[in-house]
């Protein structure tokens, strides 16, 4: 390298060396400080606490759990709860969001106004406030267990939660699931074959209806053939509360409703801008071909909308996952809530916060990867 080039690059090299040096120096100082602080406060370090018995009570758990289990188990329960509420919210928020977005551009003035009000209200109020509001209204306006709402078969809604029958799997249920799996595989094959037939000949069997029949019918047939190997443990009122069944506690319900309503407002806006970005000519061409308005929406407008709104919706999904951490404020035991309790007990903040960050970063990475794959699939293939 000649000297003039070196002189030109010298400031840049110096800046970088200084910056990296400063960061390393600060990191080293922080490390020393932390060591000194941990020693002064008698705080242990390392992840040994994960295998220590925690004694944490957790009310909502997808796996078997008792306070005698370890901190590690408790944290795992928290991760599962975070994943569960996030996944369920993403699904419901997408459905509600698409409805809101379609309603926003509806030719029906009343519906469009209503959707606009919904979006403006939800987007301009903090999510935490929405959650508190949902939680308070659920507790305040739902009846006591004795006066439970019973919308249909064995489901009871009251201010202690939503009680639903718990499925009890008997012997032979494996065959039903096997049948379901087989039906799904068969439908996928069928849809592919029929798409190829339609591409080649223009005619194809109605694969949608046949698949639906397969997926519903085959497991049902096997279910009755194997002698109905599924029973339900229905909740029963005893004393002041219900016994048996499964319970969705108000904390979970409030979190779910709040997250879904809040995110749906954002997804609705994405869908609206997506729909409005579709060229007017597309609509006119579809009308000229004599398609009905429902078909136009499903087959012409929405597929093109997807291209515009998937990237922004990816952001909303990752925000939703991060926002699920607000569970801590209304007492649903998600990862942050359980981690916070662990910090309160053994002061090992660095390890727990590190675990939080690692889990959130990986969940968000997975969401982004899936959505990017989807995005690549729906983009126009330039030929």
């Amino acid at each position, binding site marked *: 390298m000649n000297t003039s080039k070196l002189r030109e690059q010298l400031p840049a090299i110096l800046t970088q060396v200084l910056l990296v040096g400063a960061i390393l120096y600060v990191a080293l100082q922080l490390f020393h400080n932390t060591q000194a602080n941990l020693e002064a406060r008698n705080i242990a370090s390392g992840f040994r606490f994960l295998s220590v018995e925690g004694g944490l009570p957790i009310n909502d758990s997808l796996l078997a759990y008792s306070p005698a289990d370890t901190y590690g188990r408790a944290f795992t329960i928290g991760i599962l709860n975070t994943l569960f509420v996030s996944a369920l919210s993403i699904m419901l928020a997408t459905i509600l969001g698409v409805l809101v977005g379609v309603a926003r551009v509806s030719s029906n003035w009343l519906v469009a106004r209503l959707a606009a009000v919904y979006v403006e209200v939800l987007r301009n109020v903090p999510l935490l406030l929405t959650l508190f*509001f949902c939680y308070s209204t659920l507790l305040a306006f739902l009846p006591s267990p004795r006066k439970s709402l019973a919308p249909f078969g064995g489901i009871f809604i009251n201010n202690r939660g939503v009680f639903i029958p718990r499925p009890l799997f008997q012997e032979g249920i494996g065959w039903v699931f096997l049948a379901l799996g087989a039906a799904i595989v068969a439908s996928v094959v069928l849809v592919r074959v029929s798409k190829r037939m339609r591409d080649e000949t223009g005619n194809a069997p109605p694969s949608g209806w046949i698949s639906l029949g397969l997926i519903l019918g085959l497991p049902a047939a096997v279910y009755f053939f194997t002698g109905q190997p599924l029973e339900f443990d229905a909740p029963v009122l005893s004393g002041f509360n219900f016994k048996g069944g499964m319970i969705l506690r108000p904390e979970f319900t409030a979190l779910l409703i709040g997250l879904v309503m809040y995110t749906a407002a954002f997804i609705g806006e994405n869908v609206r801008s997506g729909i409005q970005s579709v060229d007017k000519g597309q609509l006119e061409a579809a009308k000229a071909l004599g398609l009905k308005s429902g078909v136009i929406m499903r087959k012409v407008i929405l597929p093109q909308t997807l291209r515009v709104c998937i990237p922004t919706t990816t952001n909303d999904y990752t925000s939703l996952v991060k*926002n699920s951490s607000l569970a801590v404020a209304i007492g649903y035991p998600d990862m942050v809530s359980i981690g916070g309790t662990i*910090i309160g007990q053994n002061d090992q*903040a660095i390890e727990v916060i590190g675990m939080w960050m690692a889990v959130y*970063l990986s969940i*968000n990475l997975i969401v982004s990867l899936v959505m990017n794959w989807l995005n690549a699939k729906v983009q126009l293939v330039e030929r």
Partner: protein
Amino acid sequence: MSSQVKKFIPSPSSPPPIAARGVVHGLRTNLFSNLFNSVLTVLVVLLMIKTVPPLVDWAFTHAVWSGGPEMCDGSGACWAFVIDKARIMLIGTYPMEQAWRPLAASILFAGVVAATVSGRCKKRTLTTAWPVFFVAALWLIGGGAGLSEVDQSMWGGLMLSLGLATIGILFSVPFGILLALGRQSRMVGVSSVCVGFIELVRGVPLITILFMASVMMPLFLPVNLQINNLLRVQVGIILFSSAYIAEVVRGGLQAVSSGQLDAAKALGLSRWMITLLVVLPQALRYVLPALIGRCIALFKDTSLVIIVGLLDFLGMTKAASQDQLWLGHDVEGYVFCAVIYWCICFGMSRYGRSLEKRGPQTN
């Protein structure tokens, strides 16, 4: 002899058919254009008949506006609770006899905001007004130099929310711009540090950053150095928000056309001059609406400080609703809180939209 030329006078055009004008037409096209729309309209109207009158009854007709807790019998909203607790919700436990100080600060705040929104003031006036206001408000609320000191543990309510948001915006915008410039930098060391910071912060929820600021930061500091919780949380909010602002600004930087850069280079400007005088002003103009969106998000996010034990507007509302005298009126408190938050956020988003309409040329 004058020949009278017959002038052609057109007869008045006949009115459009009844089906294409007036209320009937409006109803037909907007509400009953086809069967599906008609059914939808009827359903929505039925829903509104079912829900709106009870809500109005609750909020106005049966509401209790004054008096003590014994006046509220539960048939309607208990606004007396909100009125009784308004002071604590707005300024927290700030001493009553000093209450004029937050009031003065809020009048100053309203003045600066009005000057900014009106768009009539020069940019230079505004860039001096905001820091001057900032120092004055801090002095008014915190005390010192002639005013009695009020401890930070007494700052709370809406005052604290606005304070956290304003300081957060004032600091995170410049820091975010620096991060964005760093990310675009050709120096690998600088850009990778910035990318690492931005992506790490954007990948985790604000709560973890707040926990970090509140629980972990004391462990990082030298043993004898203490920083109070409020300041630590404020730093956490600034770091969090600046990562998002950096991404917004990056969009603007990428939108500046390369011709601008070439022209500036041809004029012989140094690299720093180009960034400061040519690239940044244009980039910021492009992203101003998005920046305002981030400011709204930041203001909404300040409500999370309740989780690390600070009582902001929402926190004070929650605390007020747990008063033994007034149990069971938290919904009214949250409604009041929501109305205030909504007005501020909606006002900000309207301002953002008006900037968008004014366009990048005139601003």
